[in-house]
């Protein structure tokens, strides 16, 4: 396999409702990513793109519709979709294209426009539950998170305040991100006082609904070295699926992530991730998920994560900054684009180009992760400089 580097990245702003169409959003992020590394579309060999269910946009075969905006005209173009994990999985998808030797350059583009579905895109998540044994109970998507959050908290005796600390950490980081859809500081009290939706989930435990796009450019080693003196290497990739019988798993621990993380670390030659990884972008659609995923990523001992969070271990200037981008809680959650945004954050942080968000101490190794489908799939990318 060939070495593959990230050489450019671009985003749109993440907003509750965007004027631009999905194709236009994709074009903005894609052209910004190309400009960032001085490439033209003619320099790109192939396109790997990702977007969530067609039902969100009400456009069947959305991948084909989006392709023009992703620079896919007359190029080998493939869409990947694994629910919430799509944004990181698309990077792995693109990595295959280049690592295999088939292509020298690949554009990875992820887009989501969640505002079109009326009255709420959440409606489409109702159909992820088993059609016969679960949907008859009229579940809503929040149930699954509330059930998992409660199981996780009760296992270790964590409180809602403990979980709120993660929301505050990420939302504070996100205030510095140029794509963020938030401007206001959020306190632990704000999270605790926000309306209860499905105990233990309150409104500010949850990331928002967003529109947005993200793109990165991947290149094989010789091309990457010509383009930049600071290529960010994809050191390891991993992904696994757990069973769709989600009630059968013990939800306190993200087993679906454990194996994916170990696979990525093994490829990257990382033996002690908690010591070797400098920045982490765990998937954080809910505050508890950031902590849950830090454990699955082997970056925090099970049940000790809140203690480390309280000690400032995961702060921007801590030993292992968690979601320096702000994550989904702090920047926004246009589903597929949010995962790619996390990989873009590793790119900027590892190059020392994150501006006021920059993590101190010249970080050299970072990990980004996303999670999706029926709470069962995880995709992990380790990047280093």
């Amino acid at each position, binding site marked *: 396999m060939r070495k593959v580097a990230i050489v450019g990245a*671009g985003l*749109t*702003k993440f*907003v*509750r409702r*965007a*004027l*631009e169409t999905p194709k*236009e*959003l994709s*074009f*903005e*992020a894609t052209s*910004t990513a190309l400009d*960032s590394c001085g490439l033209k579309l003619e320099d790109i060999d192939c396109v790997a793109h990702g977007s969530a269910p067609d039902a969100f946009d*009400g456009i069947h075969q959305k991948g084909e519709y989006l392709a023009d905006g992703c620079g896919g005209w007359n190029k080998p173009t493939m869409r990947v979709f694994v629910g919430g994990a799509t944004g990181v999985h698309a990077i792995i998808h693109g990595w295959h294209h280049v690592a295999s030797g088939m292509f020298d350059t690949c554009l990875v583009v992820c887009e989501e426009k969640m505002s079109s579905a009326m*009255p*709420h895109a*959440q*409606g489409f998540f*109702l159909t992820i*539950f088993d*059609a*016969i*044994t*679960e949907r*008859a*109970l009229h*579940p*809503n*998507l*929040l*149930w699954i998170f*509330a*059930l998992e959050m*409660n*199981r996780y908290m*009760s296992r270790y005796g964590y409180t809602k305040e403990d979980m709120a600390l993660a929301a505050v950490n990420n939302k504070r980081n996100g205030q510095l991100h*140029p794509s963020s*859809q938030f401007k206001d500081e959020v306190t632990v009290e704000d999270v605790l006082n926000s309306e*209860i*939706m*499905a*105990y*233990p*989930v309150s409104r500010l435990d949850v990331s928002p609904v967003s*529109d*947005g*796009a993200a793109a990165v450019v991947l290149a094989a080693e010789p091309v990457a070295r010509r383009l930049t003196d600071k290529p960010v290497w994809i050191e390891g990739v991993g992904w696994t699926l757990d*069973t769709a*019988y989600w*009630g*059968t*798993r*013990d*939800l306190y621990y993200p087993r679906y992530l454990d194996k994916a993380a170990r696979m990525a670390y093994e490829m990257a030659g990382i033996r002690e991730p908690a010591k070797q990884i400098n920045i982490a972008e765990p998937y954080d659609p809910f505050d508890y998920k950031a902590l849950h995923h830090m454990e699955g990523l082997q970056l925090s001992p099970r049940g000790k994560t809140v203690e480390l969070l309280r000690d400032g271990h995961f702060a921007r200037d801590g030993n292992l900054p968690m979601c320096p981008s702000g994550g989904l809680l702090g920047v926004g959650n246009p589903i597929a684009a949010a995962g790619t945004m996390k990989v*873009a954050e590793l790119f900027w942080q590892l190059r*020392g*180009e994150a*501006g006021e968000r920059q993590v101190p101490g010249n970080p050299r190794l970072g990990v980004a992760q996303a999670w999706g489908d029926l709470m069962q799939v995880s995709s992990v990318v380790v990047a280093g400089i």
Partner: protein
Amino acid sequence: MAEKVIVSGGTPLSEDDIRSGKIFFTEDSLDCAYAWDTGVAINRYLAELKKGKIIATECRKCSRIMLPPRLFCELCFVPVDKWLYVQDTGIVNTFSICHVHWDATRIKEGEKPHLPAVIEIDGASKGMGIMHLLGEVEPEDIKIGMKVKAVWKPEEEREGSITDIIYFKPL
């Protein structure tokens, strides 16, 4: 180092922009209808529910007693043909107290919150949980680890559905 241009596009719209006619939009509504066959294993599961019983299958290789029952073990990847009844009691593995509908609108004032739970059914392998609802319990009294029992619909009202169990109540 100076920050490069990394963000372009994503123009925020407000409800007002749309209401005031500044932004045009089109609308469409899709009406999708489906009828699902229940499959071999779940058909038997539902038929037994109609009789007021919960049936599981056991993998002859890993000995897991699985709920909902299935025709193959997804871990061992072998066919499964051993059927056995389990109890209609179990313990609450986790639960939620839900005050919102799927579109995040609040339930009506005075309406009881929905009480979804994962229930580990007695007689199935440890940790073998199914999603169902809790009832006849005050939300503040629900505890993880609590023993519960199925409350069945009257026999003549059962129709071969997971809702033949109305909910699980504390034992």
